[in-house]
């Protein structure tokens, strides 16, 4: 039965090439944009290497020192994280990483190389799951003693050393020289917590000033045992904010900060939204984005249906039940959207590759993944059914005599 429906649908597509083309074009373009956007979003917020445990990671980004007249608003300070934020209940491990990479220049054989330098503690490497191409991460001990060691990415190895192993080799970054202990694959820019070219211990910072800072230039990473512990951890963290003695009691009377997931942070800073609403807003935007293609598709479908009204009239006159015709129409639509979905899967891969190759996002490497594909498929079916329902309803109400005359008002 289904087979014959599909066969008829196929014949209809071939007969009405123009309508088939514009329907397919509309479906594909819409899905390409949606699938590409959700892939980028997924690569930014999803739990992917090296941030495989992002789903159970809380971070402290912004911290504020406030008083009546003054306010210092910046990132978390190393001193606060190190002395006051350890050992929160429900936290499996805590790590510290500089809030953003800093650019450092090196000169190798008269070539200038600019690298993105990220400073981390030893536990960072136990929270993140890097695949090591060679060597191993530096340790808590390396950080504490300020050993000049570095983990570099594959591109940096290529730039400094060329072919061959980098282990034990020295690289000069700015005025400091580091010994390479590990090489990892390139980490793309959109991995906010781990992106960098070179990672070195925080302990290698020349001055010791940062060790006592309550607010500063760092991000605290709190790996929870499970997402269910988030509330407990947040409450405990709020307690800890009251512990430190503030440096200038006349100016400042309180310390503020909040544990956030990466999604909450991005919603908050990039779009200025209340923290919890990111996914809601994303869904809303996507729905808004889909309105135009949907209306367009409905219009095309109504036309497609009207064009066949005399055919429908004949079929009805010879005894076809309304629902068979509706089924036929809906199947045609679903088939069309599935074809569109396949085209879009290829198209979005192409779009993502173009973005990756444009160099706007260093080390961008989007890969097709199952959740996005399933999500796209669900979207496709929703699209197909949604845009087919109104025309099909209209068709089912078509009076055979009117239909034979070739029109409805």
């Amino acid at each position: 039965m289904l087979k014959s429906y599909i066969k008829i649908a196929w014949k209809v597509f071939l007969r009405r090439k123009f309508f088939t083309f514009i329907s397919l074009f509309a479906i594909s373009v819409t899905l390409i944009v949606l699938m590409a956007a959700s892939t980028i979003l997924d690569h930014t917020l999803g739990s992917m290497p090296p941030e495989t445990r992002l789903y159970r990671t809380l971070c402290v980004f912004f911290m504020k020192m406030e008083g009546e007249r003054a306010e210092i608003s910046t990132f978390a300070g190393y001193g606060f994280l190190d002395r006051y934020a350890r050992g929160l209940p429900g936290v499996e491990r805590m790590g510290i990483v500089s809030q953003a990479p800093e650019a450092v220049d090196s000169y190798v054989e008269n070539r200038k190389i600019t690298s993105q330098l990220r400073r981390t503690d030893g536990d960072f490497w136990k929270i993140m799951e890097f695949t090591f191409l060679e060597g191993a991460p530096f340790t808590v001990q390396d950080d504490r003693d300020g050993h000049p060691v570095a983990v570099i990415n594959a591109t940096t190895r290529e730039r400094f050393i060329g072919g061959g192993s980098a282990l034990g080799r020295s690289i000069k970054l700015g005025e400091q020289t580091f010994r390479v202990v590990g090489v990892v694959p390139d980490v793309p820019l959109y991995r906010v917590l781990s992106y960098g070219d070179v990672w070195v211990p925080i302990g290698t910072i020349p001055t010791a000033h940062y060790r006592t800072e309550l607010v500063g230039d760092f991000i605290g990473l709190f790996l929870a045992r499970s997402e269910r512990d988030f509330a407990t951890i947040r409450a405990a963290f709020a307690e800890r904010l009251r512990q430190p003695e503030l440096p200038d009691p006349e100016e400042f009377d309180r310390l503020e900060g909040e544990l956030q997931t990466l999604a909450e942070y991005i919603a908050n800073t990039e779009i200025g939204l209340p923290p919890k609403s990111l996914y809601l807003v994303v869904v809303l935007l996507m729905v808004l984005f889909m309105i135009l293609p949907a209306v367009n598709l409905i219009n095309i479908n109504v036309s497609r249906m009207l064009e066949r009204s005399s055919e429908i009239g004949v079929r009805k006159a010879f005894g076809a039940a309304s629902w068979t015709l509706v089924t036929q129409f809906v199947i045609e639509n679903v088939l069309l959207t599935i074809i569109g979905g396949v085209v879009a899967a290829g198209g979005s891969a192409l779009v993502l590759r173009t973005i990756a190759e444009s160099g706007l996002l260093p080390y961008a490497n989007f890969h097709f993944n199952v959740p996005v594909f399933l999500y796209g498929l669900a979207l496709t079916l929703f699209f197909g059914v949604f845009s087919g329902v109104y025309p099909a309803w209209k068709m089912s109400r078509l009076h055979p005599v009117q239909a034979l005359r070739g029109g409805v008002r």
Partner: protein
Amino acid sequence: MTRHLLKLVWNRKRSNLLIMVEILVSFLVLFPIVLLVAQGWSNYRRPLGFDVRDVWFVKMYSGQPTFAETEEETARRRELLRQLYPAAKESPAAAQASAALIFPFTDSTFSGLRGTNWIYATDTFKDVMGVTMASGRWFQEDDAQLAWRPIVINRHFARDRWGTDSPIGQKISPPDADPEMRVIGVVDDFRVKGDFSSSENIIFVPVNLNSGWAPELPDRLLLKVHPGTTASAEDALLRRLRAIAPSYTFEVKPLEAIRDEYIRMTAAPIIAAALVVGFLLLMVALGLNGVIWQSITRRTAEIGLRRAQGATVGHICVHLLGELVLMTGVSIVVGSAILVQVPVLDLLGSFPAGVYTASMLIATAGIFLLVVLSALYPSWLATRLRPVEALHYE
């Protein structure tokens, strides 16, 4: 004739409704992107107020945040700056140099007065950046002797604050200003945030490292290099600077490169959005083409009848396009009403009335063009039908 068309459109409102909704949504999608592009373009065309050619921008990092530093640390930083600045000035590549606290081509501002952006700069700044004076004068070395602090503002601020009155000699009193500040000069403009930004209120505050008159340390250096200087001179400059401050990290970049990067990064999302909107509208055009084609086929008999009754090909064309243009008009009126009512556009920032109106007109014209283009081919097909065939269609 217009009334006749109006009646037809109105009486067919149910089947026309979906088409009108589609045109309406297209307009709502097109307008914001046109607005963004128009705003960017109208700003881009205006002079930046400074010249990025042959200017190198040097950033210096002491390796620790400045806001929490002790007084000794600040003093040390000041002392280093006092040596770094002349070293840069006297480097072979530099024709002139200036030290400043400035964040060119970024959204960062540094300000001591609400609604203004402050740039701390040495007296050489004007020549390095090629700033043109509208009236008054720029800072001089011996301004340090004055009992008050001279400032230079841009024309936008002058007009904003004093209207048509001359701002020269006027005082401004920010909360922490000591001594008082007086305007000594007005520059044409200085859009420090970049080519796509609107004019903002700029105040230049002088710093003089030698006299100790430097309320904020100007820890960025601007070098006007000799024309034709290549990147190879960079290394020599860096070596010079590092010799003075070995613990510092320096970053040298031509201002032109910073500007190119800024233009690329600002334009990229807009271009991406415009591409997406372009594809959406192409899709709409194709869709409308199909819909109009179908509706014209369905009305072949009507077209034949009109021809029989003495309508010329021109009449039919005017008729079919007229109906669509009317529908588009209604959609756009509704769309404009929605845009005026709903403050969604505030999310995109504030726009000058001229840009807003121009965008409205461009978006309207764009939608009309879109509809007419998608109707042209089917309408032409319809008029090609000979009346006899049209009447016997069915």
